[in-house]
């Protein structure tokens, strides 16, 4: 197999869940590519398939009820979906690090921070305990907590939210992963902390050259951190572009409306342009373009067929039949 240019190459990933209510189609042919050292954001609303994507990459998808129907997740020239559990363990935490939304939930409350950081080091690098502790101190310093033995000896509940998130980042980067998956890492934090954490992630990327897959619903946050952005709606990528392209010249009506609906002090007195309707359930995805019931432009064509991904130049892709059609957002 030829060496791929991509660190992570998700191709046509299709995942469904068997639920009592029926078949929930969580991902319907998702393509995401990430070059080494690139920060790619995956933006979508709740239930759009962001987290399922990250679970597939990590091999944490519960099967059943989940099922991968199609697709590949190629990471460093290996299809992660073909690995057995032992091989996956070698990758998880070592080559791919992960940070979650609520650090309080994902840190084990019964173990000290130090034990949780050294655990990965001892497991993946067969380090001696003492060396691992030294390394953990270095990591804490790196994430802005200082070479602080007190933090190492603290339990998670003794730390503030921001410190917990930093400790979690220290754990995630302990093995110098090539890819860091950050699933809404700043959503639970205050704005001032949020910015600090985003800066920290960018600094670590510059230092280690790791790729970042940044999952978020917040376009403002994404604007700070991402090089390229993929917008996901109802289990399908609807638009994929560089940050510049997406914010300056969004193509898909969903992206356009999303950007317009963000409140801003400059819009005071105006009505917000709200997107009518609600996000569709994964069990009842509309036919054709899944956005058509909420789309102000929709035509018969949109109901009938699924729009293909079309490249509009410079890697700016969008899946919509009506791109270029003029409409006035009032």
């Amino acid at each position, binding site marked *: 197999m030829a060496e791929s240019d991509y660190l992570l190459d998700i191709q046509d990933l299709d995942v469904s869940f068997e639920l009592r209510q029926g078949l929930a189609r969580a991902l319907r042919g998702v393509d995401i590519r990430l070059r080494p050292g690139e920060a790619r954001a995956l933006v979508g*609303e*709740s239930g759009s398939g962001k987290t399922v994507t990250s679970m597939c990459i990590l091999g944490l998808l519960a099967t059943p009820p989940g099922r991968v129907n199609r697709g590949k997740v190629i990471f460093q020239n290996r299809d992660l979906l073909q690995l057995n559990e032992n091989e996956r363990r070698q990758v998880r935490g070592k080559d791919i690090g992960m940070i979650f939304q609520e650090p309080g939930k994902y840190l084990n409350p019964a173990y000290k921070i130090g034990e949780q950081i050294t655990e990965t080091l001892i497991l993946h690098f067969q380090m001696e305990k003492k060396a691992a502790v030294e390394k953990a101190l270095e990591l804490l310093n790196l994430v*802005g*907590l*200082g070479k602080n033995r*007190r*933090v190492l000896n*603290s339990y998670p509940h*003794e*730390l*503030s*939210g*921001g*410190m917990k998130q*930093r400790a979690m980042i220290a754990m995630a980067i302990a093995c110098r992963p090539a890819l860091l998956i950050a699933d809404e890492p700043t959503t639970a934090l*205050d*704005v*001032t*902390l*949020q*910015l*600090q954490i*985003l*800066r*920290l992630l*960018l*600094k670590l990327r510059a230092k280690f050259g790791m790729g970042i897959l940044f999952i978020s*619903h*917040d*376009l*403002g*946050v*994404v*604007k*700070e951190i991402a090089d390229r952005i993929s917008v996901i709606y109802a289990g399908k990528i609807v638009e994929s572009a560089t940050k510049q392209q997406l914010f300056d010249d969004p193509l898909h009506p969903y992206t356009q*409306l*999303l950007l317009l*609906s*963000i*409140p*801003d*002090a400059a*819009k*005071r007195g105006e*009505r*917000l*342009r*709200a*997107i*009518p309707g*609600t*996000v569709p359930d994964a069990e009842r995805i509309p036919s054709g373009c899944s956005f058509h019931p*909420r789309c102000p432009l929709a035509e018969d064509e949109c109901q009938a067929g699924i729009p293909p991904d079309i490249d509009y130049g410079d890697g700016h892709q969008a899946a919509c039949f009506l791109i270029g059609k003029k409409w006035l957002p009032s």
Partner: protein
Amino acid sequence: MAPFIEIKNLVKIFSGRGFLNRRKAAVRAVDRVSFGIERNTVFGLVGESGCGKTTLVRSILFLDPPTSGEIRFDGTSLGTLSSRELRAFRKRMQIVFQDPNSALNPKMRIDDSLAEGLVNCGFPAVERDRRIRRLLDLVGIAAAHRTRFPHEFSGGQKQRIVIARALCMEPDFLVLDEPVSNLDVSIQAQIINLLLDLKNELALTYLFISHDLNLVGYFSDQLGVMYQGRLVELASADEMIRNPCHPYTRKLFSSVPGKQTEMEEEDDAAPERPGKKYAAGSAAGCSYAEYCPIGDRQCQAAEPRLTTIAAGHRAACFKA
């Protein structure tokens, strides 16, 4: 003329007892806060988690009566009311919470949830029905869905129902505690538009809490910034965004994601330390002095008071 809602020198101290009834340091959660809200306007309250926003709001509604200070609601001082009078007064002030999932009883049909307060106040069935019908119509929920349970609705719909319930008593003052932060981005704008329409239609006055500074700037007429239990800056929303004076406010507004053109140089050291809690009586100096880029001796020694720095703009900082 006095404002519609007037808060004067509000203090709330929690003096809990610890393990085995040991005395614990009292926490001054809200410290000498004063401000007013004009009728039919939106007062936005911002600050980081733990700064006392929710405590302040609970005190204003007399859910947790304040330790000292006065709250005047349309000329009536709430502290002077008997519990019976207060109960009657409560009809006029309602609250919408952050999470619509936990605000609605999952075992009650929304019809019953909405009627509960009305039953409590002795409204006859016909009147209850009339009000519920009207409100559901107002917030955009089909009347046919009245007999459904909360789980049959989406998050945005649930929040609409919670708003309808808050309006059942025909209040004139509504506290909105992060009303959209649990909703999807595409739904948030719907609810915000709804709240603005209701404000105009029903002549409501809002006290709005949010950590989303873009949203607060859009939604509010007046803004108050809280830090560690104190109000550090007070101004009209336009003025606050154009010309923030307190260093904390500046830091807060410069942290809004997506607003920077360039990443500024990083502040690497985490300024937080474990287990640090502010205690009552530790009031010497400005509470922000430690982190303040322009703080000096004076800030350590004396406490800045809210002073007027321009028409309608007040800040608690010596350097402002």
